[in-house]
């Protein structure tokens, strides 16, 4: 028995630690908004735990004290109800005070959150699509406006303003370790300010049910030092790399001849589709298909050959390619750093 109990505790402990190591955990905050919220979660949890324990004590004590004799109903001790009334009224009063306290605490937390982005210098427009994220970096100079997909680079330590909307159904933008979630709603524009304290990669995913592939609509925020971020932006503004080897050149021809161009854009080529992710620098991203696969030659090939097997129901159709054609296509895309 004792061994069982200690095993249970060990398992519970392991489970808890595992969660804290998560890179998508609200309890592992990496920015001021998430830190404020984590503190709020712990405070509410602690207070609620105390209340729950008190109620359970109040439930268990009369059971411990009960007399075995089955009472004749209606036989109530004189004066007992007055004492009960005082106890109940006290409990109700305490409840009201606790609730008022928690309400005020929420108000103040709200104000703290609202203050985070008051001086945001960078504005990023995030548009939800079934099932990927369009990311556009706004700039006063039109030629510097940059559109990418699924991964969001931000400068670490600086507040960033995200403008959230959707072109199809409702999605919800959520990076738990940086901030709470906010919906992307067609016809509405929501504003989410966030900040990452330190450089790092933070995972998030769509939180509002958005159809078949809701489960595979992941995203990453990559926070970098300012200089590195600026360099990244400048690199991304460049048109796509011109294919070198024969295979990659064949891949580009193939891409431009096939229906791929109807949906995808590759900067510097005639491909200008906008209904699917921009592929100009696809190979510089860490994942494929909105966080579903890690970026690798094999995964690129797998994704192009069988998108419906990997994300059933996704809007990427199967394009019939021979083995050689597939290799060429992958060689081309792989070079789009």
């Amino acid at each position, binding site marked *: 028995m004792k061994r069982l109990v200690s095993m249970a505790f060990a398992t519970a402990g392991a489970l808890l630690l*595992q*969660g804290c190591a*998560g*890179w*998508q*955990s*609200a*309890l592992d905050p990496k920015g001021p908004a*998430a830190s404020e*919220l984590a503190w709020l*979660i712990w405070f*509410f949890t602690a207070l*609620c735990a105390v209340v*729950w324990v008190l*109620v*359970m004590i*109040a*439930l268990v004590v*009369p059971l411990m004290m*009960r*007399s075995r*004799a*089955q*009472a004749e*109903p*209606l036989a*109530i001790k004189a004066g007992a109800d007055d004492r*009960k009334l005082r*106890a*109940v009224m006290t409990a*109700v009063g305490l409840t009201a005070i606790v609730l008022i306290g*928690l309400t005020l605490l*929420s*108000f103040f*937390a*709200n104000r703290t*959150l609202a203050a985070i982005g008051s001086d945001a210098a960078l504005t990023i427009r995030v548009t939800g699509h079934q099932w990927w994220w369009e990311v556009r970096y706004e700039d006063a100079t039109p030629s510097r406006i940059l559109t990418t997909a699924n991964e969001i680079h931000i400068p670490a330590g600086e507040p960033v303003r995200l403008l*959230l909307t959707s072109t*199809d159904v*409702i999605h919800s933008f*959520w990076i*738990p*370790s940086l901030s*709470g*979630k*906010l*919906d992307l709603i*067609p016809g*509405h524009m929501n*504003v989410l300010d966030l900040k990452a304290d330190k450089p790092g990669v933070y995972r*998030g995913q769509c*939180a*509002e*049910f958005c*159809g*078949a*592939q*809701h*489960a595979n609509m992941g995203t990453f925020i990559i926070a970098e030092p300012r200089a590195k971020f600026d360099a990244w932006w400048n690199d991304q503004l460049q048109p796509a790399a011109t294919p070198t080897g024969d295979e990659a050149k064949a891949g580009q021809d193939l891409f431009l001849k096939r229906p791929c161009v109807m949906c995808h854009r590759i900067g510097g080529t005639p491909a200008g589709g906008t209904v699917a992710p921009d592929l100009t620098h696809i190979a510089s991203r860490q994942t494929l298909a909105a966080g579903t696969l890690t970026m690798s030659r094999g995964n690129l090939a797998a994704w192009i050959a069988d998108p419906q097997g990997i994300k*059933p129901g996704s809007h990427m159709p199967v394009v019939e390619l021979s083995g050689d054609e597939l290799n060429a296509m992958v060689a081309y895309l792989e070079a789009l750093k």
Partner: protein
Amino acid sequence: MSSADLTSERDLPRETPATGDVAPEHDGPRDTGMDDANLDRWLARTWRTPPGIIGALSSVDHKVVARRYLITAFVFLCLGGLNAVAMRIQLSGPQRGLIDPDLYNQLFTMHGVTMMFLFAVPIVQATGIYLVPLMVGSRNIAFPRLNAFSYWIYVSGGIFAWVSFALNMAPDVGWFAYVPLSGPEFAPGKRADVWAQMITYTEVSSLAVAVATIVTVFKQRAPGMSLDRIPLYVWAMLVTSFVVVFAMPAVMITSTFLILDRLVGTHIFNPAEGGDALLFQHLFWFFGHPEVYIIFLPATGMVSAIIPVFARRPVFGHLGLVLSLIAVGFLSFGLWVHHMFATGLPKLGASFFTASSMLIAIPNGVQIFCWLATLWDGRPVIRTPLLFVFGFFFIFVIGGLTGVMLASVPLDLQVHDTYFVVAHFHYVLIGGSVFPLLGAAYFWFPKISGRMMSERLGRWHFWLAFIGFNAAFFPMHLVGLWGMPRRVYTYPAELGWGNINLFISAGAVLFFLSFVLFTFNLVHGALKGALAGNNPWDAGTLEWATSSPPPSYNFARIPIVTHVEPLWAEREAPPVATGLRVDVRELLISTVAEAHPDIREKSATPSIWPLLAAIAVGGTFVYSIFTPWAIVWGAAPIAITLIGWFWPKDDPEDEG
């Protein structure tokens, strides 16, 4: 209709004789002075359900209708539970490929639709249909044919949904079916139409039952059952019925707007044409939050009925509990927006809904403190029904407290649409409603079947359910905080949610098994249980004053109520009122506040028309998912069946 010939004093004598009559042409034999055997013979003949299949299909006895409702709702509970088990098997590890997203999305939609619309609301209303007329001392529910109609509507709506599931046509847009995902552009096919029409259709039955319950409580109470002597369970059903009447139309409007957008081509929810997707959410949650209390309030009524019986004293703070029920009913309409904090509302508005959501915790707290005070001062006898009430305390209080957490806007932004919320509302709905319902099943089973369920199996059932439930749902709080969103059919292994999900799935299977044990106990109890007698628990309310199961006419003589616990106040048989006719179905109608006997009123006789009308209405709704013209063509059979239903008869007893 004739004026009642009963004295209307608060302190009625033990036997109130009838005097005079204003409508002598309708006069027939009465129960006045009739000996018991003769009286039973007369009433049994007048109130019986006719034999044969047609007779069974035309029954308007509230107990018959309620039993069907209860069994049907239980079947849907098991089906919804199987959905849940299938989902938990898929989620027991990362990247399991057992269920594809298409089927998974249908599974969780059907799980939600089944549990909310086909199990939870119908079963609490069914319990009310069975108990309310008995507890207020009446011979039948008000509008018995409407009540029978409501059952046929409900069961056909449920069959409609599940047949569409079997045909791979089940809705896959979530039980909430947010637009634009459920709109014409993003949900081609008929799946979202099934959702929209099934919702509108089954809510008709909820409304019908609510109206019948309200009238029964207000007008059919036994003489002397003034407002302050109404049992708390009946109060809970009354408040619930009002919430139904005001909340259900909101969801029916939502689903009707949706079907108009999908079928007729309106643009009510289309932002490109001046509509708004958020309107759907506001309408839906204006129903959706009170819905939680439609399920929870009757359960609190059950707790208020069970606790005093096993604590061996009347409930503490009767008035406080009644006022709390009413306050919860009102406040439940003021907090729908807390489901929408993540939609980016204006800050001030969101703060208002934080405050109002917090506020509802106060009347709920009052109820809990009053029950605890009752237990403190009582001498609790722990039997299975009370055990489930303890389980309710343990679980529901956790759910209520996490509800307080969700009411906070900033906190909600992290946990909204995660497994934390899944954990929260299963704690509230299963802890707050299913555990009291299970307690109520053990408590009132003898009144329904005449037999007792096994106490030993009941305890096993309780512990299995209690452990299984907490193992399945408590860890969901954690996995939600670790970032797992709801409604995902799979998750990547790197996020480290695998082990905890395996644990959750094991708990879910255990919880499901507890229902297998419960089913066995039900069947075993119904067939082989010990005979119960009138009042096996020595309870105080009127339903225990008649035999178990009650005869078709409920009470041979209508009891007179002098106390909120009449059977405890009068340790011998309670006084009775007489003067009702025995050759036709007569009810005693009383005044709203004081329950003074007012008039004698005929109650409907069995009729096949409610069934036929339900078939006509159901056919129209099913047909309408294919063409809007169904409404036009369907009008004819609906009109014919309603004309048949309300056709004036020569015999005045066929009215209503």
